[in-house]
């Protein structure tokens, strides 16, 4: 048994350089495949579209696998229980900043939004701080970060993380200032949260690594099709749709494009893997960065299914306040980036 584990880890060490080699030579390999092996002519629409897909799809999937693996390991150290303990009785603002950052690394699924909300409130985490967490957790998504990095470079990825944190911190802080506790359903306060000592369990490093592999299987298995479709749309648009197609709709000089994109984004529900390639097409065809960013944040940060789930614990005015405050935050970010770039 032990022997098997040692063998496995030797094999694992070889994976990283292998990954690097493939990633490094992906572009020349694609060139060779498209222009030599298949024999297409550089500059032709179909050739460019094919090249784009053959290069982008493995690149993005490889980036995803590598980073999801490490994120999966990091996440084994951040349980909601620990996050709750760190946030309980925290002062506002410092608490909002911490909550937003913990929202990025703590494992979160919107299906667990209710138990998480109840657990936080019960432990004395202030409402505004809880919201900073609930806003950051879905909106700043690791898959989106990786895709943005892969398609636009680290600057756009950093802008996305930075503005997402900004919105989560400020929106949570405002919700805290407004003292909206009266709009929490009253049964929330009557609930008796039990205790368990689950988070005391010690996880071995071997198990954490295995959980990293599980994260790859779980997340990449779920999103690869969306990535493929998104890039396929991108590849098709790459060669065929005119460059300035989106300028009149989502260009920076169309003043209403930011709020309109946000409104359209709320009922649309997609995971980050599907929306980023589409956003990349929008930008390539003349949509401005601010408008596209606002659209993306609205789609993944403000989703109708999550609002329906939250409605169980929050009364309607608080849901609306939440949507309005986050929406305004996204709008400010959208206009700001249209103004700067």
């Amino acid at each position: 048994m032990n022997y098997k584990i040692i063998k496995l880890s030797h094999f694992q060490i070889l994976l990283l350089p292998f990954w690097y080699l493939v990633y490094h030579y992906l572009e020349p390999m694609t060139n060779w495949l498209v222009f030599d092996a298949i024999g297409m002519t550089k500059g032709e629409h179909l050739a460019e579209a094919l090249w784009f897909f053959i290069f982008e799809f493995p690149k993005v999937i490889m980036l995803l696998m590598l980073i999801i693996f490490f994120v999966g390991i990091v996440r084994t150290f951040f349980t909601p229980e620990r996050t709750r303990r760190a946030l309980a009785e925290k002062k506002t603002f410092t608490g909002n900043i911490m909550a937003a950052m913990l929202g990025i690394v703590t494992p979160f699924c919107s299906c667990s939004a209710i138990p998480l909300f109840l657990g936080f409130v019960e432990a004395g985490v202030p409402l505004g701080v809880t919201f900073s967490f609930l806003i950051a957790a879905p909106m700043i998504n690791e898959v989106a970060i990786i895709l943005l990095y892969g398609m636009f470079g680290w600057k756009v990825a950093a802008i996305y993380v930075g503005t997402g944190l900004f919105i989560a911190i400020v929106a949570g802080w405002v919700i805290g200032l407004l003292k909206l506790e009266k709009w929490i359903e009253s049964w929330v306060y009557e609930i008796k949260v039990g205790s368990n000592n689950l988070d005391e369990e010690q996880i071995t490093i071997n198990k954490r690594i295995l959980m990293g592999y599980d994260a790859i299987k779980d997340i990449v298995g779920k999103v690869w099709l969306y990535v493929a479709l998104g890039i396929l749309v991108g590849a098709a648009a790459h060669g065929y749709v005119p460059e300035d197609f989106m300028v009149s709709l989502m260009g920076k000089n169309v003043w209403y494009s930011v709020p309109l994109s946000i409104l359209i984004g709320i009922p649309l529900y997609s995971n980050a893997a599907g929306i980023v390639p589409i956003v990349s097409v929008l930008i390539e065809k003349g949509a401005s960065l601010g408008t596209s960013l606002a659209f993306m944040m609205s789609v993944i940060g403000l989703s109708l299914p999550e609002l329906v789930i939250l409605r169980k614990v929050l009364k309607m005015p608080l849901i609306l306040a939440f949507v309005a405050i986050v929406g305004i935050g996204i709008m400010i970010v959208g206009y700001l980036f249209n103004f700067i770039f």
Partner: protein
Amino acid sequence: MEIKILGTGCANCKTLEKVVMNALAEMNITANVEKVEDIQKIMGYGIMRTPGLVINGKVVVSGRIPKIEELKEIITKYNN
């Protein structure tokens, strides 16, 4: 043995139930498996991530679906 599966009806909760049933069948163990979907009762176990697995009153898993091998180990450990 008393087994409870905690979850508000999400896809993962159903998957966990399936894995538990398979593990029990493979181990030839008869157990009383109950699904708990009421959020107030779920919170009584103090978990913040669903699905949760409770064996003989003790929370043993929350927020993930263990592999069947791991689940068998867990069942053996808490079955007494």
